[in-house]
Structures are given as structure tokens and as C-alpha cells.
């Protein structure tokens, strides 16, 4: 019989191996799924894991999609490590996009390049304000941050809808619900010709390093984590839980807002009702698969981006249903949660 036994110490090996095992399980279950759908599993795998890295252009697209996931997940890692459960990064992403879009719409044909900076800062501020609402309600009224942040996502989406169907609608846009495309001065500069990849990626990587330094090399980052690991110890030490709440939400809101700004002023180039693409929710999975660690999150953001692109390719080339991306994300998260048992427990055969 199979028996689960507590380990004396959490296993170092398994804390690294568990995400890999989870990935392997996801692939296996995915293949079984392909077969059930009557598709060639090897072809499916190829579309998911090979096509997205086959050409330089494809790699560019992969990195482009990974950027917002990486940014949002970094902020969420700070939140979750502080025991602050921000589930509404999607809303903060939308508000960042809105604020950035609003500034970008102000740009004229003769605006300078500083406009880009204003657009990005507006995005950060927008995300911070939206997350700050959650922080304020929690701090002032003890409202549950999970519910508040989640519900604010839908408010943010309605706000976006109101603006693009109403006051911000492009008068020359044949009545489509979208703003005019932004002036070149307000668009994010691209890194290379022949790729949509933009400066968002180096910014995100620099921020990953920054968050790593903050979490593991500063007293403030340490205080955030103590608040999450042992609230009584944080109180004993005198680390303020209110401060931790505000820092966590403002950092993650700001990063999600930045991701929104990079998205609208980058590949999208205008505001449409399709700005919210689920990055804010997918980033929750990215953060956990990446072990709430900046380096892990860089890797898991790439993986999640692969699922997004693979899912789209599977739709167009193999006729898979649209929900296949979501199924893969869910499979990965569940496998990871299951495999994480192995970190603290060992499985033994015998009585």
C-alpha cells in the first residue's frame, strides 16, 4: 500500500523537482486529452512546445507575451509572501492600461519621446490607485482583500467599456468600440526590426532583479515576509502589518499597471474592450509555479506564455477548442499543488 510520511526537513531536491514533475504530468495528461479528442498527441505536443520557439519571430512573440505575466507575477509574489491575497491584478492591469491610454491619447504628432515615460508612469499610477482602493478598504474597514480586489476587476472592465464605447471612442473608427491608435511618440519603442518585442522585456527583467534584491537583501523586504510567515513574530518584532499591506498592494498594483501600460502602448496601440486578456489571473499561477521567487517566475512566465501561444496555434492549426489554454493552465496548477506534497512528505511503499 502507498503511505505518506512526514519528512524531518522539507526536501530541497523536491522543491526544485516538483515543478518539473508537475510539467511532465501536465504534458502526459494533455496528451491523453488530445487522444480523447481524436487528435494526434505528438502533433499537439509539437504545436504547444516546439512551434512557439521554432523561429526568431516566434521566440519574440513568446517573450512579448511573457512580459506582462512576468511583471504581474512579480508583484503578486511580493503580495503572497506578505500574506496579502491580491486576486485582482487583472483589474489593476486594466486600470494601468486605461491611465496609460488616457495619457497616450493626449499626445499629438509633435510630442517628444518623453511621452513614453509619461505613459508608463501613468500606467503605474493607475494600477497603484486601483490596488490602493483595496488596501484602503482593508485597512480602514477590515474588508476582505480577496473579495474586494476580485470584484474591482469587474468594475475596472466596466469602466474600460464605458470609455471605449463612450467618451474615448475614435470618431473616425466606423463606430467600433475603440480609441484612435496612439501617436508614434506615445508608443513603446521596439527592440529589433522584424519583431514586435519592445523595451518592456528588459524593463521586466530589471524589475525581477529589483524585486529579488528587495525581498532578500533589504530589511523592508524581510519584514514583508515575516508578516506572511509568522504574523505574531512580525508583531513581536514591531513590523507594522498596515505598512506591509500597503507596500504589498501598491507594489503589485504598480507592476500590474505597468504591464497594462506596456500592453496598450506596445502591441495593442489603442484601447479596446479586449485589453483584459486574463493575464492578471494567469499570473497567479505563474507566481505559484515560480515558487514566488523572481527567478522561478521568469521561467514560469515563459512556460505560461508558451501555453497561451500554443493554445492559439492549436485552435488555428488543429481545430482545438478555445478553452485548451485554460485547461493547460489549470492542469499545471493542480499538478503542481499535488507534486508539492512531495516537498514536505515522502511516499513509501509498505504497510
Amino acid at each position, binding site marked *: 500500500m502507498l503511505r505518506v510520511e512526514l519528512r524531518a526537513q522539507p526536501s530541497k531536491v523536491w522543491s526544485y523537482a516538483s515543478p518539473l514533475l508537475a510539467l511532465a504530468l501536465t504534458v502526459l495528461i494533455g496528451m491523453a486529452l488530445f487522444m480523447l479528442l481524436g487528435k494526434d498527441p505528438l502533433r499537439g505536443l509539437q504545436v504547444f512546445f516546439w512551434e512557439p520557439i521554432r523561429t526568431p519571430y516566434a521566440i519574440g512573440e513568446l517573450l512579448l507575451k511573457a512580459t506582462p505575466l512576468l511583471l504581474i507575477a512579480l508583484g503578486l509574489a511580493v503580495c503572497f509572501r506578505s500574506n496579502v491575497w491580491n486576486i485582482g491584478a487583472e483589474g489593476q492591469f486594466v486600470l494601468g492600461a486605461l491611465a496609460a491610454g488616457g495619457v497616450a491619447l493626449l499626445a499629438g504628432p509633435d510630442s517628444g519621446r518623453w511621452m513614453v515615460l509619461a505613459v508608463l508612469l501613468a500606467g503605474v499610477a493607475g494600477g497603484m490607485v486601483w490596488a490602493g482602493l483595496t488596501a484602503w478598504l482593508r485597512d480602514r474597514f477590515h474588508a476582505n482583500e480577496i473579495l474586494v480586489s476580485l470584484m474591482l476587476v469587474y468594475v475596472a472592465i466596466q469602466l474600460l467599456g464605458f470609455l471605449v464605447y463612450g467618451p474615448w471612442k475614435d470618431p473616425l473608427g466606423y463606430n467600433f468600440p475603440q480609441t484612435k491608435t496612439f501617436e508614434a511618440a506615445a508608443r513603446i519603442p521596439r527592440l529589433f526590426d522584424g519583431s514586435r518585442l519592445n523595451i518592456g522585456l528588459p524593463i521586466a527583467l530589471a524589475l525581477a532583479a529589483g524585486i529579488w534584491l528587495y525581498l532578500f537583501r533589504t530589511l523592508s523586504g524581510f519584514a514583508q515576509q515575516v508578516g506572511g*510567515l509568522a504574523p505574531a513574530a512580525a508583531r513581536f518584532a514591531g513590523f507594522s502589518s498596515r505598512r506591509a499591506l500597503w507596500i504589498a498592494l501598491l507594489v503589485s498594483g504598480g507592476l500590474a499597471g505597468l504591464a497594462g501600460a506596456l500592453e496598450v502602448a506596445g502591441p495593442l496601440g489603442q484601447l479596446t474592450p479586449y485589453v483584459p486578456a486574463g493575464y492578471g489571473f494567469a499570473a497567479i499561477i505563474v507566481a505559484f509555479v515560480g515558487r514566488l521567487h523572481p527567478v522561478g517566475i521568469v521561467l514560469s512566465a515563459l512556460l505560461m506564455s508558451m501555453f497561451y501561444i500554443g493554445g492559439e496555434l492549436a485552435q488555428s492549426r488543429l481545430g482545438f477548442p478555445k478553452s485548451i489554454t485554460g485547461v493547460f493552465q489549470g492542469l499545471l496548477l493542480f499538478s503542481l499543488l499535488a507534486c508539492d506534497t512531495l516537498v514536505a512528505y515522502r511516499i513509501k511503499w509498505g504497510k
Partner: protein
Amino acid sequence: MSSTPRLELSAITKRYPGVVANDNVALSVEPGSIHAVLGENGAGKSTLMKLIYGVAKPDAGVMRFNGQQVQVRNPQEARSLGISMVFQHFSLFDTLTVAENVWLGLDKQLSLREVVERIESKASEYGLELDPRRPVHTLSVGERQRVEIVRALLTRPQLLILDEPTSVLTPQAVESLFVVLRQLAAEGCSILYISHKLHEIRELCRACTVMRAGRVVGHCDPSRETNASLSRLMMGSEPELLRARDQAPGELMLDVRELQLASEDPFGTDLHGISLQVRAGEVVGIAGVSGNGQGELLCALSGEDRRAAPGSVQLAGVDLSQASPGLRRKHGLHFVPEERLGRGAVPTLGLAHNLLLTRHDAVGPLGWLRLGVLRAQADEIIARYKIKAGGPDAVARSLSGGNLQKFIVGREIDCNPRVLIVSQPTWGVDVGAAAHIRSEILALRDAGCAVLVVSEELDELFEISDRLHVIADGRLSPSVPRAEATVERIGAWMSGLWPSESSQAEQPARQGLNAAREATDAQG
């Protein structure tokens, strides 16, 4: 005695990952005897009891009950054999009545009314006063223990296991517990009595099995031993001797005046007009049964609770009533809480990082952490206090209670506090480490620090304090010098019965009346 032993264990072995908790243990308990199992924390006593009661299974060994070889797979089987256990931590539901709590653990054939009757008859049989209809949250700790004992007795046990039963009782309540246990033994019930309190074992037991590091290291008749010989058996060596030194206390350091505070916890204790002074170079002890306001007082002193009125907590003339814990530390007020894991230290972080909770010597500009400095500092504390740990990065959870406590106390002592407040300095700590911690506290006092110790162990307070207060029901007694404190006197005060400061007569202070009533209840 030549009769069949009630319980006989031979070659019992139990391994946990990384440790052998019981190694080839043998134990034999005669019918009707009160048998002590003595050992330091971590010696394997509790594990052995869990094996007997079926909570855990031995890896090897044989257990015989009344001569029959048995395998106890779970506590239900143990109870059906006639083995009952009263745990150190009670398992009662606060919102249910006594009878309902007992009912939960019994056969469901009985009606609640029958259970009430049985509790009443069993309680009166042993002179245990208990109202089965009272909700558990209204009971004192001593009364809760009585519920557990009556619950155990209702199953008509032939063997009753008591795990550290006196740690939550006043000395008077301990005496009445002993009366019950002697009566039980006289009726033929065997009792296994787990403790590390030597004088209790010497008073109560005629047989004793001593354990050390998972092994049985000796048998004796405790009534013929001395405290010293018993502790030598238990530890394998002499405890460090404490240097008592009379020293004139210096200037006033910690000054608490009329501290009044409603508890944040609905089941907590409000503090009423607490006044307390600690001078440089003295140790002031606060005795009392847990849950009488110690936790609330300590939070108000440490800064974890900052609602105290201005002026009520002062350090060397500086008002710190509403200062943060960090600011209090800057003024030299350090605190060692009773909960080591989760409050005094973060269980999953390394020792070096745990220094950052109270000390910021390794923090550079902009909050930058100098990890090298931090590790060196942790190494130094580990070496100086002889802490057994796998280096500065060993997670706090991996240390034994005693070693972690030494680390936490060391962390605070190492920064030369002006006032050190220690709660339960040796709770759950083995005797060797306890002696070490006490001698460090005394050394700190000799160096001119003002020390306030809150403890439930009277022995410990008598050993290290220069003056003693007692806390009961959120009120603090006047202080007595150690020389004038006796167990009887302090014990009576623990029930709230102390003379009011205005009159010299030994009559209960007016504000102590409520507590006094509860205490007489508790003594039953």
C-alpha cells in the same frame, strides 16, 4: 510484588525520521501503584505514552496488559482495554457544557441526562466538585482538568495516564489532585504520572522509571531519593549551580503605574491598576496561574499592544506607553516571549535571519542587509551560548525547544539591554538548558540590568527572583522579598487572596474578592 503487572512493556522501539524517540524501552507498572516516568523534555516520555494509548504505533516491542499480550491500534481500543489518558493540553469545546463535552467521548447509547447523573456521582465519589451543566468557557483551568479526569474515570480505567498534570495548577489545587490520585490508587487503579517536577514525584510516587534520550536509564523509589540524586539520574550530570548574590538594587528602570487595559480578546483578562517597579540589578518575578493577565501585561510592556494610557509604562523616566516595540528596544527594553516558534522566532527562517526580528546591527543604509555580518553575529551567539544547531542558516524549527530558547534569550542578552522582560524562560526546556538560561539571567542582573521574569513555575521564581509579585485576575499583588516568600503564601496569593496594601491584616483585598471566590471554587 509477585502479582502480574498491570502493564508491562518490553523492548519498545519507536523511530521518527531522524530520531529514535524510544530505544528498547522496558516498563512495568504494578496494580494500584502510582508510577512516575521522569525525564527531561525530549527524553521520550510523551512518545512512550502515545504508544501505550494507541496514538502512535511502536516499530518493535511487546506490550502486555494484565499479562495478556496486546496491540493497541487506537485510543478507542486503549479505552476498551481500560487505559485512560489525561493530556497536558485539554481537548474540550469551550461553547459546550461539561456534560456535553463528556458525552461526545462516550458511547452514544447514553442520554445526556444519564451522563449528567454519572458525572455527578463520579465527581462526588472522589470529592471533585463539578457542575455538569456549566459551559466549559466559564471554568478555570483547574476545573477544566477536573472535567478531563472525570471523563477519564467514567470509563472505569485500570490504568490512568497523566501527562504533566500540575503545570496549570496552584499548589493548593495540586494537593487536592494528589488526594484524588491516592484514592484511585488505593482502589486498585494504576497511575502513570509523567512529570519533570521532582518534589511532586517524591511526594506522590513509590516507583519511578527515569528516561534519558529515548532510553530507560534507571529505576528508583523516589521517596528515598533527593532532588539532587533524581536530577542526576535524569540528566546524567549535575546542573549548573546558581550564584546567589545579594546586591543593593540601583536606580529605577522600569516603572509601571496604574496600568489599566481592557483585553483585546473577548476571552482574555482585563488589567486593573497594575503598578510595578524594577530597578537596575534586580530580578523581579511575577507568579500566577496562566490566563490571569500575564499575556496582556506582557503585550503592553513589549509594545505589541500600544493602547496603554500615557505615563503608565516608563523606562528610566521616558514614557514608552505607546511606543512601538522597535522604539522600546532602542531605549534598551528587550523582551523574550513565551511562544518561541511563531512569535520569538520565525519557524521557517534561519537563525541568522531571525536575529533581524529584534536587532538591526547588520542593516546598512537604505535597509540593506549585510548577510556576512548577520551570519557572523549568529555564529557568535551559537558559540557563546553553546547552542546545538546546524549553523547560522539552520531554520529555527529544526532546533530543540531548549536550544531555540537559548538562542532567543542569547539574542536579547547579547545587545546589553537595560531592561529584560522574560516570559516563561524555561518552559518546555530541558533541565540542563534551563539551568544555563537561569544563570545567564542572573549574570545579566549582576551586570546591572533590570530583569522582570513572568513564570508559572514557582521553583524557578524562588530560585532567581529578588522580589516576587503575584498576578491574579488581572490584578497585581504587592511585592515580597524572596526571603519572606513561601510556597503557601504565594500559592494563596495566586488565588487572588492577598492583603490590601492599606491594611496590614491578612484579609482579601476588595478587588481580589471575585478571584477569591473563583479560587475557592477551584479548590473544591
